[in-house]
């Protein structure tokens, strides 16, 4: 079975630009979460979506937004990019949105902002 897939793998953008990252969850999984992992740190939670509705938002500015589509895939959008947005962006899917369900992570998108 295919795992969580993310695109693109790598991305280089300039400060002030906008970026869209994409994620396809494991087949049958209804919940998608986004995390930001800065080099040398653990992942930080950005968003969780379940059945197309936002279930949680981390401590990130409004420049960050996301959505989930009817097929459960998801997009993460970041506007007005800053150098500090350079990171590995991870998407995770889980069967449901409850506390007992483990999340399965994709390989990530490496975003570099210059």
């Amino acid at each position, binding site marked *: 079975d295919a795992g*969580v897939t*993310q695109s693109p793998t790598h991305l280089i953008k300039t400060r002030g630009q906008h970026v869209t990252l994409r994620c396809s969850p494991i087949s049958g999984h209804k919940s998608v*979460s986004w*995390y930001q992992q800065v080099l040398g*740190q*653990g*992942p*930080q*939670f950005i968003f*969780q979506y379940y059945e197309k509705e936002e*279930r*949680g938002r*981390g401590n990130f500015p409004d420049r960050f937004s996301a959505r989930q589509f009817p097929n459960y895939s998801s997009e993460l959008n970041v506007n007005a990019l800053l150098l500090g947005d350079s990171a590995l962006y*991870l998407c*995770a899917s889980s069967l449901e*949105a*409850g*506390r*007992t369900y*483990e*999340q*399965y*992570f*994709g*390989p*990530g998108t*490496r975003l570099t902002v210059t």
Partner: protein
Amino acid sequence: AQSVAQPEDQVNVAEGNPLTVKCTYSVSGNPYLFWYVQYPNRGLQFLLKYITGDNLVKGSYGFEAEFNKSQTSFHLKKPSALVSDSALYFCAVRDIEGNKLVFGAGTILRVKS
């Protein structure tokens, strides 16, 4: 707020020896604890979880973790380390609302042959 701490930045162990990667937690209510492993330039791979039940949890690749409520710990263990176990290990706790994982800073495991 839920949190986990990984007190060791790096753990070194010889191949064939037992390994332990430490994690302590701070939670309100019952803890929902997870271990993940990350290889270079890769996403995180799920190893195991503790929800309830037996304090010794068995996971993937021969790893296990021991939940200790009195010491608020959830240490990752393996009886015999492999060189291929060398990676970055993260302990995580699910938050009260259930919508996110809160990760520790990670521990680098180096297994030498």
